[in-house]
C-alpha cells in the first residue's frame, strides 16, 4: 500500500468558483522508502504542492478539492486542527532557506527539543539526549555543545542540518524537502543530499524532494513528477524520464542541462516563461511555448495518459508516439 496517495488535488488563490488555480487535479502515489522528485521551473507549483500537503497554505491560497491520504488516513478529513496534529509527527518539512527558517533567538537544542517534548511527550532530559543523537545523526560535530548555539553561530550547511534534525525529530512517515540545497554552496549541497538519502534509506520513510536541478533528480529519485503551471506534465520512473522523456516540456528541461561536451555552444533555453496565475491558456498550458503545438492542443487540457507501465504523460502527441505517426504518413 502507498504511504502517500494524493487524489485530484486542486489549490486555488482566493475564493469563489472562478478562483485561479496554482495546482490543478494533481494525483500521485508514493511508497514507503521511495523518493519522489518534483521538478519544474519556478512558478510551476512545486512549493504549493508541498505546502498543500503539509496544510501550511496561508490566506488567500487554499485547497479547493482533492484528498491527501497518508498511511491509509485521509488527512484532509479532520479539518485544520487534526492536520496540525499530523504535522511534525507523521509528516514534516525542510525549507529552502536555512538562513531564515530557524528561529533566530532560540537555541538550536530547544528548536529540536520542543518537537520532542510537545509532540512526542518526552521529558526534558530524554529530549535533550535525543536531540544530541539527532544532531549526531545529521553529522554535526561536537553535537552536545551545539545544543546551546544560536542559528547565527552556525554556517548555512550546519543550519540546514539542524533543520533536518528538527524534521526528523518525530520520525515522520513522510518528509517533504523543498529545494533543501538551493541556498547552499555546491560542495555542501552534495553532503546534504547524501545525508538525506542515507537517512531516508535507513528509516524507510517516504521522501518528496522538490528541486529544479535535474542532476539532483538523477542522483536521488526513484520516481519523478514534472509539474508545469500547476498541472502534472509527466510522471515516470527516473530511468524512463532520462531515457525516454515524452512530454515536450520534460524534453526541453533535459535539453537545457548544460553538459561538458557541449563546448562553446550557447546554452539551450526554453523560450517564454510559465504563464502567471489566472492567465492560463484554455488548453494545454505548455501550448504557447511548445515547439510541436497543433490546433487541438488549445481546445482543452490533455488527459494524463498511460504511455507505459511506469510512465504517464499529459500530452496529445507524446514524443516517441508522434515520431512513429509522422513516420507512417
Amino acid at each position, binding site marked *: 500500500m502507498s504511504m502517500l496517495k494524493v487524489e485530484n488535488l486542486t489549490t486555488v488563490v482566493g475564493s469563489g468558483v472562478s478562483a485561479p488555480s496554482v495546482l490543478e487535479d494533481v494525483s500521485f502515489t508514493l511508497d514507503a522508502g521511495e523518493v519522489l522528485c518534483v521538478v519544474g521551473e519556478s512558478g510551476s507549483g512545486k512549493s504549493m504542492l508541498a505546502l498543500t500537503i503539509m496544510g*501550511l497554505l496561508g490566506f488567500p491560497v487554499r485547497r479547493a478539492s482533492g484528498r491527501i491520504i497518508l498511511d491509509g488516513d485521509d488527512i484532509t478529513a479532520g479539518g485544520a486542527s487534526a492536520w496540525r496534529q499530523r*504535522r511534525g509527527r507523521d509528516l514534516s518539512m525542510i525549507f529552502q*532557506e536555512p538562513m531564515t527558517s530557524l*528561529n533566530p533567538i532560540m537555541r538550536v537544542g530547544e528548536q529540536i527539543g520542543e*518537537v520532542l517534548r510537545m509532540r512526542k511527550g518526552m521529558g526534558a532530559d530524554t529530549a535533550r539526549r535525543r536531540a544530541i543523537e539527532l544532531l549526531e545523526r545529521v553529522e554535526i560535530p561536537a553535537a552536545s555543545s551545539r545544543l546551546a548555539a*544560536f542559528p*547565527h553561530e552556525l554556517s548555512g550547511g550546519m543550519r540546514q542540518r539542524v533543520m533536518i534534525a*528538527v524534521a526528523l525529530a518525530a520520525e515522520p512517515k513522510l518528509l517533504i524537502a523543498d529545494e533543501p540545497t538551493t541556498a547552499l554552496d555546491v560542495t555542501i549541497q552534495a553532503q546534504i543530499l547524501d545525508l538525506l538519502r542515507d537517512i531516508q534509506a535507513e528509516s524507510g520513510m517516504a521522501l518528496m524532494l522538490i528541486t529544479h536541478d535535474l542532476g539532483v533528480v538523477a542522483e536521488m529519485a526513484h520516481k519523478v513528477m514534472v509539474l508545469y503551471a500547476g498541472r502534472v506534465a509527466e510522471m515516470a520512473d527516473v530511468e524512463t524520464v532520462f531515457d525516454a522523456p515524452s512530454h515536450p516540456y520534460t524534453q526541453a528541461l533535459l535539453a537545457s542541462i548544460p553538459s561538458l561536451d557541449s563546448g562553446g555552444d550557447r546554452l539551450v533555453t526554453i523560450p517564454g516563461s510559465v504563464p502567471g496565475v489566472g492567465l492560463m491558456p484554455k488548453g494545454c498550458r505548455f501550448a504557447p511555448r511548445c515547439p510541436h503545438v497543433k490546433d487541438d492542443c488549445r481546445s482543452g487540457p490533455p488527459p494524463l495518459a498511460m504511455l507505459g507501465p511506469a510512465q504517464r504523460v499529459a500530452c496529445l502527441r507524446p514524443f516517441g508516439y508522434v515520431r512513429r505517426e509522422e513516420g507512417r504518413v
Partner: protein
Amino acid sequence: MRDYLLRRLISVVPVLFLVSLMSFAVIWIIPGDPTAAFLDASSTPEDVARLREMLGLDKPPLVQMAEWYGRVLTGDLGQSILLRIPVLSAILERLPLTLLLATLALILAVGLGVAAGTFAATRRGTWADQSVMSLALLGLSVPDFWLGLLLIVVFSVQLGWLPSGGYVPLLDDPLGWAKSMVLPTITLAVVQVGFIARMTRSAMLDVISQDFMRTADSKGLSGLYIILRHGLPNAMMPILTVTGIIAGALLGSAVVVEQVFALPGVGRLIIGGILSRDYPIIQGGLLFLTVIYLLINLVVDLLYATIDPRVRLE
C-alpha cells in the same frame, strides 16, 4: 555580555554630562534676575545678596558650573528656597509614589497593549482587528488630564466607588491604598496602551510573515504556543524600544496625573517648583527624573541583549 554592559555604561556618561549641564543651565535661560521672584519692595540689598549667595550666583559662571558638578557628584542638590529643606530629601521623600505610579501604569500598559496588539495581529483584517486598533487610536488621542477629570466625575462623584484623589499610605490602609491608585494608574496608562498596542501589532505582523514561523507551524505546534514562544520574543525588540520611550513619557505624564489626583509625588514637587520658581527644586527634580529615565533605557538595552544574542556582537 560583560563587554556589552561596559560599553553601554560608558556611552551613558556623555549624555549624563550634558543632561546635568542642561539642568544647571535652566537658571541661565531665565530672562531677568532669577532672584526677582522671591523679593519684594521690602527686601534689602542684604536679602538679595544672601539669596544670590545661596543660589551661588555671586560667583563666575564657570566656577558655578564646577561647583554644581562637584555637588551633584557628592549627592548634594542644594536647598529648596521655599521648602527650606535639602532638595535631595524633598525628592527622595516623594519619589516612591511617583515610581510606584509609573510602574503600575507601565505594567498595565505593556500587559494590555501587548495582548491587544498580538490579538489584532493574529486576526489581521477582521472586524476584531479593526475594533481593537480603533480603540488603541482613540486611547492615544485622549488628553490624559481630561480623561482623569472625567473618571473622577464618573467613579468618584457619581458612583462614589473610588476616591477622587489624595494618597493613602500602603501600610496604613491597604485597601484604601489600592483604591487611591486605581484611577491615577488607569489615567496614566490609557495613552500608552494605545501606543504599545499599535507597535506590537505592526511588529507581530512583521514576525508572522517570516519563514521561521512557518517552520514552527510545520512542527505541528499549537497556534497559541507558536505566537507566544516564537512570535512574541521576536517581536520584543520594537516593543521594548517603545516601552523605553514610554517609561520616559510616563514619568512626564505622572507629573500631570499627580496634579489632577492631588498625589504628593515628585511631579507635583517639580510643578510647584516651576510655578514658584524654586530653582534648586527644578534643577534637582529634572536631573533626578532624567537620570531615572536614562537608567530605564539602559535596562531596556540590556534586555535587548538578553533576548536577542545577535545584539551583543554589534
